[in-house]
């Protein structure tokens, strides 16, 4: 039955007949703290860092006072309350107003900071909803209380209420704080901004050490505050310093390094960014180019044949490893967070580089796919402070047949086969990289050799989602394998950039990205940002099936919808469990061996 989402192209005249006029939702319709007092605002604006900010840097539509009024809130925490949990996807930065917090770098016992759980509806309600006949899809309760933050789970365990707000707390906070390595943060200090800006999971846990008052600034506000050059500079400085230390500490390769050597490496390491942070805006146009032209658009991090000066460590984003083949480039692999480039050459030169002729340059090229942060560790520092501490078993395999020597490329017979064992078909790997599917953590993969187009998956999805399926059974195809247009819950969720109300959010526990219909204002920013066209704007209706329209313009009110991986169902994605032919799977595209295994099995 080929269901298509309720797109704007529906019969406008028919829908207008029973339309209900409401106020068009606006930015800041739902401030982070609707009860923020004017005197608090006045006090905030006179305190640092806001007092030093240049008011002229902010546009008339978003002055500093409005940013603080709408995108910030003052919150009280008690001793032991968890402010940020390690691994949580950052949504807000915090400034300590009064009291003290502690950052714990070491992992907390999961039983102490019990993971939050989403409130799930009862079986009976789920069943009744799924069996309900819906004359119109996408029914919304317009009168529902709108919560201020999107995509966040309700707290249920180890929770107490402070100022009517739920707080997760550690029951034995003092013992945990005393027994762990922690750093105190006092009044005026900023934290959590890194995770908020980079949309990455937090590397540390922050716990209130005694009663604390914090100013929370959600990332939409933080983005606006960065218009102030001084604040921007401060953030950049912190971003580099803090990220670097944490990242080096987390790198497997350096885990046996004594602290003083790690310190030396940190001092010498430089952080370089390649590509465009908002890569998705260009992606759709560059996608039209020839594959090789697309590749040439990717900024070069390392060019093959150039001298090995650094070890490259990927901090965030993805990079393409390739080598020249004929008139084009052949992709060997893509590197993600924590992976290194140039180690084989470094080790080779360390062992055999006695003469100029035995020194090898980089054997492959490294290019930025979208936006990449890399750390470059100078060769000499690696030789002195890292290589002696790397375990033999962790060293890369020797380079079997170099493509380049110090004097230039080595001319070989027609084909220069890579002797390493390929995990997947190289053509498939190139397809994944070119289509940016490597970003997907929950891609919908359909084997069209098994799929009979019965649409049971589409129907199951519609049953769970207001009578409207959250995906379309079309998409890029590699051989018989189709990557359907369903939200992939990306590693780098660019759709979350720019949402003015924070309605689109990532669940800290599951990594699922979902849209909160209570706070979505239908601005289409997420839908336009999604490089894969996996977010669809739909018309919404009230409980009586009447279409909702803007009071002033009489135009339909739209909301963004996308796959939420059926997070309300404990049984997992309905599409996958409904497929009677085992033709559909939700799978992590970065796990190549698992991907290949599923494809081979099919």
């Amino acid at each position, binding site marked *: *039955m*080929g269901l*298509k989402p309720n797109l704007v192209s529906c019969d406008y005249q028919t829908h207008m007949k029973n339309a209900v006029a409401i106020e068009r939702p606006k930015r800041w319709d739902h401030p982070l703290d609707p009860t923020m007092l004017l005197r608090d605002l006045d006090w905030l604006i006179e305190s640092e860092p806001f007092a030093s900010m240049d008011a002229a840097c902010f546009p008339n539509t978003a002055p500093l006072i409005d940013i603080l009024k709408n995108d910030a809130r003052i919150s009280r925490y008690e001793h032991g309350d968890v402010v940020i949990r390690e691994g949580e996807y950052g949504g807000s930065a915090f400034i300590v107003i009064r009291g003290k917090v502690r950052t714990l770098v070491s992992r907390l016992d999961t039983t102490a900071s019990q993971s939050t759980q989403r409130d799930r509806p009862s*079986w009976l309600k*789920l*069943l009744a*909803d*799924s*069996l309900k006949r819906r004359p119109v899809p996408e029914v919304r309760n317009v009168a529902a209380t709108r919560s201020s933050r999107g995509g966040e789970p309700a707290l249920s365990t180890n929770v107490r209420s402070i100022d009517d707000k739920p707080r997760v707390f550690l029951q034995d906070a003092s013992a945990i704080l005393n027994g762990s390595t922690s750093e105190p943060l006092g009044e005026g200090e900023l934290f959590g901004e890194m995770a908020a800006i980079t949309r990455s999971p937090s590397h540390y846990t922050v716990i209130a050490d005694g009663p604390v008052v914090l100013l929370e600034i959600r990332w939409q506000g933080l983005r606006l505050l960065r218009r102030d050059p001084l604040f921007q500079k401060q953030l950049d400085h912190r971003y580099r310093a803090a990220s670097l230390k944490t990242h080096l500490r987390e790198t497997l390769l350096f885990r046996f390094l004594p602290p003083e050597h790690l310190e030396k490496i940190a001092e010498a390491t430089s952080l370089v960014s390649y590509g465009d942070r908002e890569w998705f805006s260009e992606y759709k146009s560059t996608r039209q180019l020839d594959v090789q032209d697309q590749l040439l658009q990717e900024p070069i991090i390392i060019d093959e044949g150039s001298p090995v000066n650094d070890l490259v460590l990927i901090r965030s984003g993805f990079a393409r490893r390739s080598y020249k083949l004929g008139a084009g480039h052949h992709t060997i692999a893509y590197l993600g967070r924590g992976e290194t480039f140039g180690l084989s050459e470094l080790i080779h030169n360390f062992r055999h580089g006695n003469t100029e002729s035995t020194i090898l340059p980089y054997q492959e090229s490294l290019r930025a796919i979208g936006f990449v942060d890399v750390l470059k560790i100078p060769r000499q520092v690696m030789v002195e402070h890292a290589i002696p501490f790397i375990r033999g078993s962790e060293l890369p395999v020797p380079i079997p047949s170099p493509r380049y020597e110090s004097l230039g490329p080595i001319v070989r017979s027609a084909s220069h086969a890579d002797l390493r064992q390929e995990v997947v078909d190289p053509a498939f790997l190139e397809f994944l990289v070119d289509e940016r599917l490597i970003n997907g953590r929950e891609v919908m993969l359909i084997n*069209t*050799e*098994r*799929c*009979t*187009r*019965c649409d*049971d998956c589409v*129907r*199951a999805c519609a*049953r*769970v989602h207001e009578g409207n399926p959250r995906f*379309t*059974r*079309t998409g890029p*195809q590699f051989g*018989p394998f*189709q990557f359907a247009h369903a939200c992939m819950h990306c590693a780098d969720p660019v759709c979350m950039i720019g949402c003015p109300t924070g309605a689109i959010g990532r669940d800290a526990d599951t990594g699922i990205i979902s849209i909160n219909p209570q706070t979505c204002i239908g601005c289409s920013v997420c839908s336009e940002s999604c490089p894969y066209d996996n977010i669809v704007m739909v018309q919404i209706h009230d409980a009586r099936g009447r279409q909702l329209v803007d009071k002033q313009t009489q135009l339909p009110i739209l909301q963004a919808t996308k796959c939420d991986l059926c997070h309300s*169902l*404990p*049984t997992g994605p*309905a599409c*996958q*469990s*409904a*497929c*009677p*032919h*085992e*033709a559909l799977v939700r799978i992590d595209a970065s796990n190549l061996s698992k991907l290949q295994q599923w494809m081979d*099995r099919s």
Partner: protein
Amino acid sequence: MSIMRTRSINACTITIAAIAAMLMVYRWVDSQLGRTDYYTGFVLLASSIGLMTLSLRKKLIVLPLGAVVIWQQIHQYLGLFAVVTFAMHAGFPVHGILETALAVVFVLISLSGIVGWYINKTTPKKMLTAGNPVLREDIAIVRRSIAQQAYHIALSAAGKNESATLADHYTKYLSEFFSRRRSIAYCIVPTGKSRRKLLHGLEKISRYLGPDGKSSKQSLSELVIAKDDLDFQWAMQIRLRSWVVFHVSLVWSFFILVAYHIYLVYRFQGG
């Protein structure tokens, strides 16, 4: 050994064991001078109800009752079990109008089940030979777009002397092909006969065309292939859906007859 293969072997083993167990109980009931027809009848009824639960499972997708693929497999093997049970229950030859009707419907359900299993296995691969998948609701749009492209090629050819033959050929042989849907017969047994005939026709007029005309003819040939591929995908999808409707309709007819059959059995059972 793949998971699927292991599962199939397990399912086969369980089915054979179930049939064997059913036969053993049948013999025991018989040896006790019990009512074997009642025994097989109720086993058949239970199996039939079990077979019906697949569609129920598909509707209750929110419940944690296992993946539909497992239910689908159970449905297939339970179907095999039901066929054996039915053979024991009905015997041969079947007497009476109602019993004959019941037997015919049951045989039709079983045959349609086997046909369904076969076409569900083979159709996806066949569809793949006809280009990338097209959503069924998009087929009409794509078909119209192909027809328009063909029309424009023919129209532009009509304006040139050296290509006018192509325009004539389009009007005579291709216009209808591009604008219409394929017949029901084609849905049942899709063939490449029309495609071959039309391509051959285009090839035959090639000698009367100039360079521009030949290029237009080539484009038309590609559109004939694209339309035929689209028709093939449409036919395959229609065939699968029609099969589901046919199978389900038979199932409901069967249950109506079964209800009447049970009523009659109890109405006229001997003391």
